């Protein structure tokens, strides 16, 4: 029964990862990362159910908190670079290379 949830979580994770690669807007890229974290949460909760212990569910809460903290930091950084460059495209930030 739990396999379906795991497949879903893997799909969400893959969508998130691919989204990071194909989207240009930093905000969207960042949202894709959040999607990956939530895929993890789903996997944790599923495994917690499978093992019959609460560790996984507990971890999911921790992950949410960490994700929230990440949002704060991430948005701050993205807004700063947006104000400087008038663009939130990750491809525009391309001075550091080689």
């Amino acid at each position, binding site marked *: 029964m739990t396999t379906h949830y795991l497949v879903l979580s893997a799909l969400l994770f893959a969508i998130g*990862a691919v989204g*990071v*690669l*194909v989207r*240009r807007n930093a905000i969207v*890229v960042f949202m894709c990362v959040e999607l990956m974290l939530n895929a993890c949460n789903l996997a944790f909760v599923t495994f917690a159910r499978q093992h019959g212990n609460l560790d996984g569910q507990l971890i999911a809460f921790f992950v949410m908190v960490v994700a929230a903290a990440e949002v704060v930091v991430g948005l701050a950084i993205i807004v700063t670079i947006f104000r400087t460059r008038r663009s939130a495209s*990750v*491809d525009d*930030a*391309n*001075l*550091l*290379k*080689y």
Partner: protein
Amino acid sequence: MEPVEIIQHSGGVIGVAWLMIALPLLGAAILLLGGRRTDRWGHLLGVVMSLASFAVAVLAFVELLGMSGDQRRREIELFQFIPGMVDMGLLIDPLSIAFALLITGVGSLIHIYSIGYMSHDPGRRRFFSYLNLFVAAMLLLVLADNYVGLYIGWEGVGLASYLLIGFWQHKPSAATAAQKAFIVNRVGDFGLAIGVFLIWTTFGSVAYGPVFQVAGQAEQGVLTAIGLLLLLGACGKSAQLPLQSWLLDAMEGPTPVSALIHAATMVTAGVYLVVRSGAAFFPVGSTAALVVTVVGVATLLAGAIIGTAKDDIKKGLAGSTMSQIGYMMLGAGLGPVGYVFAIGHLITHGFFKANLFLGAGSIMHAMNDEVDMRKYGGLRKLLPVTFVTFFIGYLAIIGFPLLSGYFTKDGIIETAMHHSPVLGWLAVLGAGITGFYMSRMVFMTFFGQKRWAEDAHPHESPAVMTVPLIILSIGSIFLGGYLVLGNTLANWLAPAVGGPEEPIEFHFVTTPGIATLVLVAIGAAFAWMKYGRAEVPVVAPRGSFVTTFARRDLYGDAINESLLMRPGQWLTRLAVFFDNRGVDGVVNGIAAGIGGTSGRLRRIQTGFARSYALSILFGAAVVAGALLLVGNI
């Protein structure tokens, strides 16, 4: 009598003997790192560090005195230097402590003298930091209990010497001289390094204790090879033939440096190396020992001949230094009795030669840094203290009866005579020439007419310079007798280097002794006729073939150039030619290949965050795939 066993030591002053090295090293570090902030008091710190090191040496010496003879070789462990190969430790024994006392004692006096001598020099702090660095490295050289420690100290004094010879870099001659000293010393150091490697591969250790214990069991050929390689190192550092050429040019450095490094201490490192390794690699009668004596005699004559023709007072003294170290080398090749006189002469020479050099410095100080003795003359009234002390040093070096040099040099000559009359008589001849060139120096400088430059106003040096001169001249008078009479030095050194079977008796009246005195007297009289009584021309006359020969340092540079440098250049050109075609092609190919790869690979770093994310995803997939593959095999 064999050298006694080495005993592990802890506690007491000897237990902290590393302070001797650490203090001057700390001084050098503070002065170098502190920069201009330490300009005002830097020289004082240098002096204090040197004196503190001297104090530790004296206390360790006293502690060693309190032990019985067979207890007097103490080893202290410091740390594992190269794990499993070299344990760094110090060996405090009569030989090393004698050197430590000489280095720190004379070193401190020269530090003090330098306060006055360098008082107008903007780089005084830097000068003192180098001096401290030198003292630390030299102490490491003599106190280390293994060849690697000795080698590090050896390179350290080489570095300090290089820095100090080139101290006045703005003079091109000084910079060239520093480089020359560095390069010539490299040849010797190379020999020493190979010798140490050979010791390590032969005996599996580089510490003195274990190596000397099993040295006898090695093959004769290997022992000779090690001996000759060590001797090559010794020749480089001690300016012995054929690596003597750098010492005369090294006089470009400030005079206290010439006194400390190029007369009293560093140049005697070669003698230390030979004596320290004596029992193992230079036993009496071996080929290596024979070569040592031959090198010694050849150098003592060559140095003396060079000394006769120099008008530059410091270069004259440098030739004399070469010659006197030749005597020590000769002694060092003659077994335990020779060691005693070699070390004895080393100590007394340290005093009277430092005395003479500092005296020369004092004269230069008075004469606007003029070094040409032809522009001196009649200075004895104006520089009374310098004159008296210089004169004492002069009497000591020519071996005037009952002064320091008399005992130690005569000891070497007599021991050599015992060994081989040819060596002995050549050494006597050297003493005669010494009498001539030293008298010439004294007469040209202090007697006769004034031949000064117009703007010269000679004046006696300040007390900070004359007091060290007085102390050194007192040592020049009494030290030799104290060390030799009553076997003081022989008994003292016996635990470290082995002693003669019977106590050495010093005979005051012997054939070689009298012959030496007669020759010296003739030399001095000849000098008086030529330079004391007669007018000395301000410009050097052309002179005979022999004079030219001596003035050109016996064509040492020319020989080096034609025998070593030219073929070397030719070989280099040949090698470069082949290198370009063969070896270099491969090396360049590899370098170009790596460079090209690098240039192409760095294009992968596109600067796009998304491409980096792709590489992470790609990497993750590869790592996961590989793990699955490995896990399911």
